[in-house]
């Protein structure tokens, strides 16, 4: 929990903090998907990871599964929405390389909240009466409410060894800052980790800036293991206020995901063939032009109109002030 400068490269962060066999919380949902970290995990050929998450889009997990990094997925929804399928996940499930443990979105979120709270399980409405419960007794069971006797689903707490997330900003100490999104379930998936959080961010700032506006802190420094400055680190998913979803690239990637014989070409060109995420973005510009990136610029002009001041009150003003009293109060 030492207060220290946690900046390092993507390569260092993954090699130092992700071990084969780890349970990994996979951040974001349809925005802030940790794609640069996904690519680096693939480059480093991590094995037998167990992924926990509520839902994830843009095919990041599909690539991770295709690369043989994942043996278990505990989640509610995973696909590349822009081709409407999770092709590699589907193939790996069929071949037996991948085990899936499905819950509903709030089943998964509740499991992460139980991990966040440090409790063993938590009740949740939903999942009951369906095949989710039939096929995932590992994570969910129906019990009798000890107070009313009614049936209720309970889900096991999910605690990752390490979380990987992308955010707009982080300070050098690891205070993670988001706005315009809470990362959907990132606040629970990160804080519930046993070891901590690897964060990539569009910008790395000084701690004084974060401390001047602490309402936006998603993860406080003491849970953060590594801070990686990584512009475009969520591409092709969106990063709020920095860039939008790259639908055309998701569709392009999806065409490779669909065909297992084609997919190695994508992996070689965009992942193994790129030394780091900057090289991936350079490849993008080379192949689809600067205009491809320019199209992702967000519509701006949504700055807060409330001017606020986090001023506090100094109790020193009470020094020497006599007790308030009146005629009803006996001295």
């Amino acid at each position, binding site marked *: 929990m030492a207060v220290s400068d946690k900046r390092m490269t993507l390569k260092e962060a993954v090699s130092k903090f992700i071990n084969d066999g780890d349970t990994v919380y996979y951040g974001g949902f349809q925005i802030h998907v940790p794609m640069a970290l996904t690519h680096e995990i693939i480059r480093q050929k991590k094995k037998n990871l167990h992924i926990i998450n509520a839902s994830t889009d843009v095919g990041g997990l599909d690539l991770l599964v295709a690369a043989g990094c994942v043996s278990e997925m505990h989640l509610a929804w995973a696909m590349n929405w822009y081709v409407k399928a999770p092709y590699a996940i589907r193939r790996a499930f*069929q071949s037996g390389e991948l085990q899936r443990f499905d*819950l509903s979105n709030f089943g998964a979120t509740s499991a992460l909240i139980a991990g966040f709270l440090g409790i063993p399980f938590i009740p949740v409405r939903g999942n009951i009466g369906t095949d989710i419960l039939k096929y995932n007794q590992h994570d969910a069971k129906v019990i009798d409410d000890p107070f009313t006797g009614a049936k209720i689903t309970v889900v096991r707490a999910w605690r990752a060894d390490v979380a990987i997330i992308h955010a707009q900003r982080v300070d050098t100490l690891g205070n993670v800052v988001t706005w315009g*999104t809470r990362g959907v379930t990132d606040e629970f998936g990160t804080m519930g980790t046993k070891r901590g959080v690897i964060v990539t961010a569009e910008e790395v700032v000084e701690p004084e800036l974060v401390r001047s506006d602490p309402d936006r802190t998603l993860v406080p420094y003491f849970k953060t293991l590594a801070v990686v400055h990584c512009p475009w680190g969520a591409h092709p998913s969106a990063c709020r206020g920095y860039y939008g979803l790259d639908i055309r690239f998701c569709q392009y990637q999806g065409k490779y995901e669909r065909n297992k014989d084609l997919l190695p070409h994508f992996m070689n060109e965009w992942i193994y063939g790129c030394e780091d995420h900057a090289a991936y973005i350079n490849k993008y510009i080379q192949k689809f032009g600067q205009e491809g990136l320019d199209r992702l610029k967000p519509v701006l002009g949504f700055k807060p109109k409330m001017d606020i001041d986090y001023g506090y009150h100094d109790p020193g003003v009470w020094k020497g002030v006599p007790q308030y009293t009146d005629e009803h109060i006996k001295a």
Partner: protein
Amino acid sequence: MSANYKLTELMVVRCAKEIADGEVVFAGVGLPLVVVGFAMVTHAPNMILFTEGGSIRATAPPGLAITVDDPALFANGDATFGMLATMAALQRGEVDVAFIGGAQIDKYGNINSTGVGDWSKPDSFTYFAGSGGANDMATSGKRVLAIMPQDPKKFVEKVDYLTTPGYLDGPGSREKLGMIGGGPSCVVSTMGVYRFDENKEMMLVEYFPGQSVEKVKANCSFDLKVAPDVKETVPPTEDELVILRNIDPTGFYLG
């Protein structure tokens, strides 16, 4: 004179009419996001939109929301929460309409969005995506509105994997399990509109222009009940189409 429209446009406009002004609508990804956007700028200006991504807003988003945590949903929204806050409202029973899609549906309105085949024999199972929030929404929303394409492989006697509860095995099943939501109330397909009868079975109440009861039945694998007063759906007006196309100008969802 009838307007020139696409099938998805007809579906969206018809589906929007199921939403009453002032209702709290929890919308899933895909066409539901277009439907609620349309409802909010037409007959339901006081509707409140909830999504799994944590958006809560009483005004239509400034642009098309492609996803449930789309930045457009949070631009000038009323609150930026995560999954916790909107799902918690569902569990408290505060959501009027749970609005979902799916891959297969049976006569009791049970929905499959997980995959087809036999899950216990993985090599036979073709995964789609999984529940996402559909299960939570259909368990606890006061009523469920579903939108999905119609063909005999999708309107089936028994779903391959029951992801999302409709009326399960029929009357009383939901209550026995303590579900707080009322279950499916309306399904809009690419061929017509369905409600549920007193036995909690799906019943055709409208067929789309160009369709007929016979054609719909031919695209349904269970023995479909038909309402005695079944009628043709009123097509969208020119004005409605102009508003709708303005919501999804590139046809991302409307085609």
